[in-house]
């Protein structure tokens, strides 16, 4: 368990460190694409993906970094993509909002909110027709549950009994818009999912332990019943919606709310937990971090030193 947790921890802190590095390097103006960072939301991505196999497919949306990395997406290719380089996971054609690593089971993300939801359902439907029992895991934000296509997708998943794990990351905001200007009081994505015939559960997305447990149960349910399952995790993004900065100066979020969530920082929580469990954790952590630091440094170097795609690439890939 310790070893396993160490692994999980190092995945989480790795995502955090990568995102922080992106944030700090962004000012250089060499990563010239919109980035939606996942700082604060690492536990959901890490916990959920820790329960998935390579053959299981993950889909995400505009805020895809954590999901990509947690599913095993290649870091160098991701950074090269952010730098717009030929070595990028999609050759620079997509940027941060279109990450993909098919060999890791991570399907292309897209920045139109809600649009990967039915596509993920289609992927799962294809799996069912192929008679395999792989899971399709679709990450989605609280905002996307407002789109009609969310409802259409859940309906079809229920109708066809598909092996889908829907994971709603409820971070309470859609860009700067809080819940109360978009959703009636007490609206619950989980309740909506239930009315679409899905079973589901909700939990604290800051606690990796809880995320793992509830994901495990969800996946067991799917395997046993051959039906979709819906998870809703509460979580919080620590920096601005899009971009590398803290924007709390804009005051669209209550100070007390922000502090509450910073106290529940998923990294802090797991570190506390592990320190209690394992006296040597503080030393192991050092090692983990310096290893990751090295990897990050190398990967940034790789990305920065990679070539831009040459002009001839512009017209390639229009048709398949």
């Amino acid at each position, binding site marked *: 368990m310790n070893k396993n947790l160490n692994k999980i921890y190092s995945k989480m802190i790795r995502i955090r460190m990568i995102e922080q590095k992106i944030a700090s390097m962004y000012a250089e103006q060499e990563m010239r694409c919109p980035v939606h960072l996942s700082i604060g939301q690492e536990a959901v991505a890490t916990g959920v993906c820790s329960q998935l196999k390579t053959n299981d497919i993950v889909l995400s949306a505009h805020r895809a970094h954590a999901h990509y990395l947690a599913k095993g997406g290649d870091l160098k290719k991701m950074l090269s993509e952010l730098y717009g380089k030929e070595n990028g996971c999609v050759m620079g054609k997509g940027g941060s909002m279109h990450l993909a690593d098919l060999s890791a089971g991570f399907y292309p993300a897209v920045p139109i909110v809600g649009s990967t939801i039915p596509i993920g*359902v289609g992927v799962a439907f294809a799996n069912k027709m192929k008679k395999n029992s792989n899971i399709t895991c679709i990450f989605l934000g609280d905002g996307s549950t407002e789109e009609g296509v969310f409802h259409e997708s859940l309906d*079809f998943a229920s109708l066809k009994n598909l092996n889908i794990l829907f994971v709603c990351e409820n971070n309470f905001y859609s860009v700067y818009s809080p819940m109360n200007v978009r959703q009636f009081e007490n609206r619950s994505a989980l309740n909506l999912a239930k009315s679409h015939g899905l079973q589901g559960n909700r939990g604290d997305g800051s606690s990796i332990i809880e995320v793992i447990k509830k994901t495990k149960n969800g996946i067991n349910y799917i395997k046993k019943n051959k039906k979709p399952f819906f998870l809703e995790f509460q979580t919080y993004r620590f920096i601005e919606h899009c971009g590398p900065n803290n924007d709390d100066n804009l005051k669209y979020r209550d100070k007390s709310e922000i502090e509450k969530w910073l106290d529940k920082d998923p990294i802090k929580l797991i570190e506390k937990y592990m320190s209690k469990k394992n006296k040597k954790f503080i030393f192991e952590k050092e090692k983990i971090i310096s290893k990751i630091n090295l990897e990050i440094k190398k990967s940034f170097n790789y990305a920065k030193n990679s070539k831009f795609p040459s002009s001839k690439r512009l017209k390639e890939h229009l048709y398949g």
Partner: protein
Amino acid sequence: MDRNIDCATAINEATEQCMKKYKNVFIFGLGVPDPKGIFGTTTGLQKKFGNQRVFDMPLAENGMMGVAVGAALNGFRPIITHQRIEFALLSMEQIINQAAKWNYMTAGKQKVPLVIRMIVGKGWGQGPQHSQSLESLFGHIPGLKVVMPFSPKDTKGLLISSIEDNNPVVFIEHRWLHSIKQKVPKSYYKIKIGSGRIASKGNDISLISYSYGIFECLKASKILKEKFNISSEVVDLRTIRPLDKNIILKSAKKTKRILAVDNSWKSFGVSAEIISLITDNLKTKDIKKIARIGNVEVPCPSTRALAKDFYCNYISIVNKVLEMLGSKKKYLKKNNLNDDVPDKSFKGPF
């Protein structure tokens, strides 16, 4: 072996032959397995291939379009149907942002082999929301292919090519062509997407059109010949994107007079693209006359009293040609109240 069959049967046959050949083709849409089988185009398929590969769907055009994209990414070749092209407006986001761009935005890592069948309605009071011909909306989008055949033979061959294609193909059928008959080979054959054909040869003027427009052009062409001794060449584009540049230019060079006949409103329509393609490539001094014609620029009214004058048809084509050729003559035939059906056997309501 050739038999006389109509377009609906040709579509049905093409689908069946592809489904036999490729286990990963499936077809779904509202009413696909129902007793009317999308105007006969899907009749019997569910019996032959089972309800895993031939099935109905919920009224959820956007979501189901996404499902088709997802299935295409994961090894299948879906065909999705819309009984009216207007219903597909609900799935524009998936079609334009996703399906059309996926191969490009993944730098070729994931193809989207997909056919989206859409039907253009006409007549019997279909009215403003059941009679649009919105091909130019799709024609504008790189990454899509847009096919609009006229004849049963082309319909079959082009549908097979569309299903075999590795890209999203918008396959637009015209309701009034479903019942048109022609000798069609029984065999499995393909017609290249992006290739037009000369539907009828001529020298004085080129009538360039597609889909149901060809029906009206051929009728006009005959009248021009018989009544006015004008020899017109009818070019059937068959595909809207990509357009067959060669066949258009060749005919334009030959006749030097071009009338582009739209199946929709001409503003921002296919006919505008045809004209521009010609002026892109020929010198203006080598073109004697160039014009376009389309439906009246209003929504299509329901009442046949007005719908009869809404459509560009063989009468308006003939008169436009006479005008272009500087003839003082006029073709005086009037639009008829009962021209709101494709043929006399049609008794409504759809």
